[in-house]
């Protein structure tokens, strides 16, 4: 389930440049939620505009991968491509807006929050596959206890306690990555 395997972005980018289709599939899978969130949650684009932005961003990534100077800086690069493309969509495509013109609507997620969410997903990869799956299905896919139980073949009466246990593990994982917060458990 995880989109964050042990392979680094830089390794994936290098393999993509060499024409490795599997690496491209993984890169798209890894960043699809991120690009989608920027378009839909950050800029509140309609589905139609968001789809155009989504496909355009990955087309630009694919065709301009050779221009990326620092392979480890893939995430800021794709974030910038996405933000610019969203701004074009907002302006009707008739002029290119500078990034400073971004007006985040009330209720939309800002980039800082999306970055934070990305860090949480990276931490999620440190949990067991079952924990990753349960948390993702419940929180990101809005699946019911019954659906999760049925699809993962586990008793539905245990789903709530599993979610709580996995959330606790995820919090521990996040605090392990952020030692400054280690002593601040609620």
């Amino acid at each position, binding site marked *: 389930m995880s989109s964050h395997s042990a392979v680094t972005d830089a390794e994936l980018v290098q393999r993509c440049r060499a*024409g490795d*289709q599997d690496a*491209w*599939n993984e890169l*798209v*899978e890894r960043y*699809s*939620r*991120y*690009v*989608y*969130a920027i378009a839909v*949650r950050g800029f509140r684009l309609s589905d139609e505009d968001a*789809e155009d932005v*989504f*496909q355009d961003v*990955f*087309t630009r990534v*694919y*065709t301009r991968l050779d221009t990326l100077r620092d392979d480890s800086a893939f995430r800021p690069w794709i974030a910038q491509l996405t933000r610019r493309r969203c701004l074009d969509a907002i302006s009707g495509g008739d002029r290119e807006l500078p990034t400073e013109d971004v007006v985040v609507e009330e209720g939309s*997620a800002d980039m800082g*929050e*999306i970055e*934070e*969410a*990305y*860090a*949480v*997903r990276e931490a*999620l990869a440190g949990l067991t596959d079952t924990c990753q799956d349960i*948390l*993702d299905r419940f*929180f*990101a*896919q809005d699946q019911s206890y019954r659906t999760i139980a049925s699809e993962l073949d586990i008793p539905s009466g245990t789903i709530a306690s599993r979610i*709580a246990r996995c*959330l*606790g593990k*995820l*919090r521990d994982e*996040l*605090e392990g*990555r*952020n030692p*400054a*917060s280690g002593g*601040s*458990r*609620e």
Partner: protein
Amino acid sequence: MPEQYTEERIAVLLRLLRPAPEGWVRAAQELPVARRTLDEIVARAEADVAFRAALIADLEQALQNAGYEPSERAFVELRRLYVDR
């Protein structure tokens, strides 16, 4: 990073990165194949005057006759190149 992650906060952040629609992801993953097909058609159109004329006259039919099945986005690009010029 925030100083403290409560479980409520983690839940909010997990909800923020929802899966993109499957079709969008699949189309993006198929980009390399789509680009290769597009490049092949463009190269052939540059080398083959008759094929190019057929593309201009009836893009969809010419592609079908030549056995190409370009993606939707590749088709739009070809239309831009040969029909909407």
